């Protein structure tokens, strides 16, 4: 444990109210500190190797795009999620987070290579743009499995999603811009930020056409409408998976919609759907989903291994950002799964590393506080064994049967981030939670109370009633997704502290983490 009761020194001493950066890095013991140092060096070397050749574009990009600045703090993001960790837990986190950063660095490089705003009249950049499909953040690019010769870039993930998780203040400017433009301030900050990036003309111009989706919430609907007006001269297709996803009657429509999307990309880009490439990529998708299920199985036991943000964020980016087509992510999945089984055998044999409390995280999380579950573990011993963000589609794609494979692909879109749970209605949002509590043997749920989300807010009372019936502790933690001014990280911790002190009558494992100022930090 990182807290020393003799000296009173704990992890809270690393935070500095007047600075964004930690005061210094943690000494984790010789072996773990050297491992952490090695990973730190590797991250910088990797970034230098991939982005170094594009140094002029990177400098221009930093001056052109405000959202690119937070990427400088990538090492701090890793520190936030590995603070207090030791041994195999530290190694799981490093590997999981590096695979996310690996993917992001490659995508930043691709933006630098082809962005019209940074490359002027470059013919090479233009040729790359003509071979690239742009995607919206809430639309996984899984459909690209059948287009091996095309590139794709999720422009909203790279300019909104990822920066918001790296730096808590990255979206504030864009939220203010769109509210100044006339959008009501009670709209979810996620689509609001995407609109803010549009009205300040801060999206990179990296592709020929744009594929988006229809998230069934008020914020996302206006975001899609606004993006359509912003991307003048760019053809747009909206993938519209059905909302009542559990009903078999709607699947035929879902496949029809996907076929139209395939036709759109074929016509726009002048290529044909390639079934051979699709089977190969679907195989990779299945392997990644299998790794995810294995992690869940181990976390359902008394000795969970890959927990918190290391589990959730990696799956989120693997599925939504990389569309399960990143070979490095598959390599990481296979490595971590192997390490995890070894770790489980060790812990179960010796009966060690059993969490004090087990919890799952439910509802839309705060992008600006992705390490909240890590904090809950370090401060109170409440370990997050699964997270709704990790519960994306995991059922396999049938290899060899074309019609069935398209149905399976449609199911992936139906169960993408936010759609299947927070926007999926009573059965998928409420009933599913109790099934997960049983499956993962937990009686605590960190219930993220997204103050601007009408969908989850509408079920608030029902959650309370049902949890009370079942004897489950619902700890409501308010937040505003991408706007830390509405509910700060400190206020989120305070809500959790109050429950642990007043209901559980608990003492914190590390009292220095109870209350500290981190409004300025990344």
């Amino acid at each position, binding site marked *: 444990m990182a807290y020393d009761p003799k000296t009173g020194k704990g992890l809270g001493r690393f935070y500095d109210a007047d600075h964004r950066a930690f005061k210094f890095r943690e000494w984790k013991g010789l072996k773990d500190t050297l491992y952490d*140092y090695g990973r730190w060096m590797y991250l910088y070397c990797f970034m230098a190797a991939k982005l170094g050749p594009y140094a002029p574009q990177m400098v221009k990009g930093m001056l052109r795009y405000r959202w690119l600045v937070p990427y*400088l703090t990538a090492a701090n993001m890793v520190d936030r999620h590995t603070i207090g960790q030791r041994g195999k837990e530290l190694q799981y986190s490093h590997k999981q987070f590096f695979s996310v950063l690996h993917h992001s660095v490659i995508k930043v490089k691709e933006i630098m290579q082809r962005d019209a705003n940074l490359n002027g009249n470059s013919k090479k950049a233009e040729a790359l743009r003509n071979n690239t499909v742009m995607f919206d953040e809430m639309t996984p690019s899984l459909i690209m499995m059948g287009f091996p010769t095309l590139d794709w870039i999720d422009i909203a993930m790279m300019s909104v999603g990822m920066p918001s998780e790296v730096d808590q203040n990255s979206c504030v400017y864009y939220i203010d811009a769109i509210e100044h433009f006339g959008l009501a301030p009670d709209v979810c900050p996620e689509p609001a930020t995407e609109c803010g990036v549009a*009205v*300040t003309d801060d999206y990179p111009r990296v592709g020929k056409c744009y594929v988006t989706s229809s998230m069934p919430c008020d914020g996302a609907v206006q975001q899609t409408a606004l993006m359509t007006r912003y991307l003048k001269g760019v053809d747009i297709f909206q993938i519209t998976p059905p909302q009542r996803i559990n009903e078999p009657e709607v699947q035929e429509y879902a496949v029809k919609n996907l076929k139209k999307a395939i036709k759109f990309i074929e016509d726009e880009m002048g290529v044909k759907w390639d079934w051979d490439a699709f089977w190969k990529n679907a195989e990779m998708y299945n392997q990644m989903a299998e790794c995810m299920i294995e992690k869940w199985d181990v976390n359902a036991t008394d000795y969970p291994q890959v927990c918190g943000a290391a589990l959730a964020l990696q799956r989120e980016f693997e599925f939504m950002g990389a569309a399960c087509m990143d070979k490095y992510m598959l390599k990481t999945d296979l490595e971590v799964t192997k390490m995890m089984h070894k770790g489980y055998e060790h812990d179960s044999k010796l009966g060690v590393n059993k969490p004090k409390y087990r919890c799952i995280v439910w509802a839309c999380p705060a992008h600006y506080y992705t390490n909240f579950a890590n904090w809950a573990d370090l401060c109170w011993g409440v370990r997050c064994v699964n997270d709704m963000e990790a519960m994306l589609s995991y059922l396999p794609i049938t290899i060899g049967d074309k019609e069935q494979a398209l149905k399976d692909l449609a199911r992936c879109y139906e169960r993408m981030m936010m759609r299947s749970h927070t926007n999926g209605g009573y059965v998928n949002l409420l009933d599913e939670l109790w099934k997960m509590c049983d499956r993962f043997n937990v009686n605590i749920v960190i219930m993220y109370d997204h103050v601007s989300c009408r969908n989850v807010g509408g079920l608030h009372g029902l959650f309370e009633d049902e949890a009370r019936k079942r004897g489950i502790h619902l700890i409501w933690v308010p937040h505003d997704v991408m706007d830390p001014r509405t509910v700060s990280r400190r206020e989120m911790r305070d809500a959790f502290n109050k429950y642990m002190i007043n209901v559980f009558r608990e003492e914190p494992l590390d009292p220095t983490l109870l209350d500290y100022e981190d409004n300025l930090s990344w």
Partner: protein
Amino acid sequence: MKKVFVKAAKIAASVFAVTFAAYITNADMKLVERLYDALIKYHDSRHVEEKL
């Protein structure tokens, strides 16, 4: 040959010492903080018209 090896070992040790000192004192992020603040200040000073 031995001289080259000793020289290489000295260089490696110096690189390790400098980078480890930067790592443990979080000097990289403290430097990034300065750069970050300067870049955000620059962006704040730009006039951007909100339009569609």
